[in-house]
């Protein structure tokens, strides 16, 4: 079933502190034709190894013993901006998922997903597609709403969704597939995908701007230099 395209040769790193789970994921990915270039059991190791392993995709558990998946995502993005992070989480970690997305993760999958769903998500992540679930779409909608409701004055540079983006996210949030959305709106699959991706891009950009502003206001700017994840 795995189609042989570029993504099948993508370099993948698997980060999870449960050895059995980590090895099973690595094995499944290898069998599907991916090059599993590294595995890591905690965040510090992941950040250390990523430079040499040069993964295209990082499959990252949000719950790690030493640091949060959000911090790892931020560190990976800072040091290797081209890396695409696919976050795996247990249910009920919605705020963490949203924070990881804001820190640069492009996809999210529940740990209850099947092996096939995981392969599919990795393939899509490697292809540069945002892997969205209805739950994440709803979170992102809520986040934009929260941002736009912030008191005026803080309004400078606050990202907004276009009507089309809102329409599409609402459809994703109520369980429609990209294909169904494309048919309903008479758009191409790729256009729907781009709209979804743009919503993430806006959140991530806003998040970076906010971090820099925070750093400058608090005199921390030097500590945010690329390549030096906090706490290392």
């Amino acid at each position, binding site marked *: 079933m795995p189609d042989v395209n570029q993504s099948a040769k993508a370099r993948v790193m698997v980060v999870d502190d449960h050895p059995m789970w980590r090895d099973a994921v690595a094995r499944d990915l290898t069998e599907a034709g991916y090059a599993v270039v590294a595995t890591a059991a905690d965040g510090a190791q992941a950040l250390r190894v990523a430079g040499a392993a040069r993964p295209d995709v990082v499959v990252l558990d949000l719950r790690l013993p030493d640091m949060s998946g959000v911090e790892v995502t931020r560190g990976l993005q800072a040091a290797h901006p081209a890396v695409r992070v696919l976050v795996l989480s247990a249910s009920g970690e919605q705020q963490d998922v949203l924070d990881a997305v804001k820190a640069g993760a492009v996809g999210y999958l529940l740990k209850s997903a099947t092996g096939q769903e995981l392969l599919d998500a990795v393939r899509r992540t490697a292809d540069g597609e945002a892997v969205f679930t*209805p739950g994440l779409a*709803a979170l992102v*909608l*809520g986040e934009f*709403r929260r941002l736009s*409701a912030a008191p005026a004055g803080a309004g400078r540079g606050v990202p907004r969704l276009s009507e089309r983006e809102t329409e599409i996210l*609402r459809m994703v*949030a*109520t*369980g*429609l597939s990209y294909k*169904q959305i494309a048919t309903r709106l008479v758009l191409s699959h790729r256009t729907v995908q781009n709209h979804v991706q743009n919503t993430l891009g806006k959140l991530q950009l806003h998040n970076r701007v906010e971090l820099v502003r925070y750093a400058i206001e608090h005199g921390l700017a030097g500590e945010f230099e690329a390549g030096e994840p906090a706490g290392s």
Partner: protein
Amino acid sequence: MRAALDNIQRHCGETTRAWVLVEDEPELVRVTIRDDGPGIPDGRLAQAAAAGRFGISHSISGRLRDLGGTATVSSVLGEGTVVELRLPCAAAIAVATSPGTA
């Protein structure tokens, strides 16, 4: 919302999935309930109402109207049904704070 979910349970197969999206907007609360069941054929709702069964028109639209809101039902055969409930914020607050509304 309960009525809309009950409808899905009553009229759709066991494999039907349903999604509920609640959006808290500045001036209204919007609840969207979608299922991927068989959908409702054109004219079916009017027919049911004519036969004296008022599930959707009374228990959903009627209640919303009483509160100053609206309900819309749209359905594509084979692709499921979407019920969208919109309630102005003032009314939503009244519902949330008044005891015994269900």
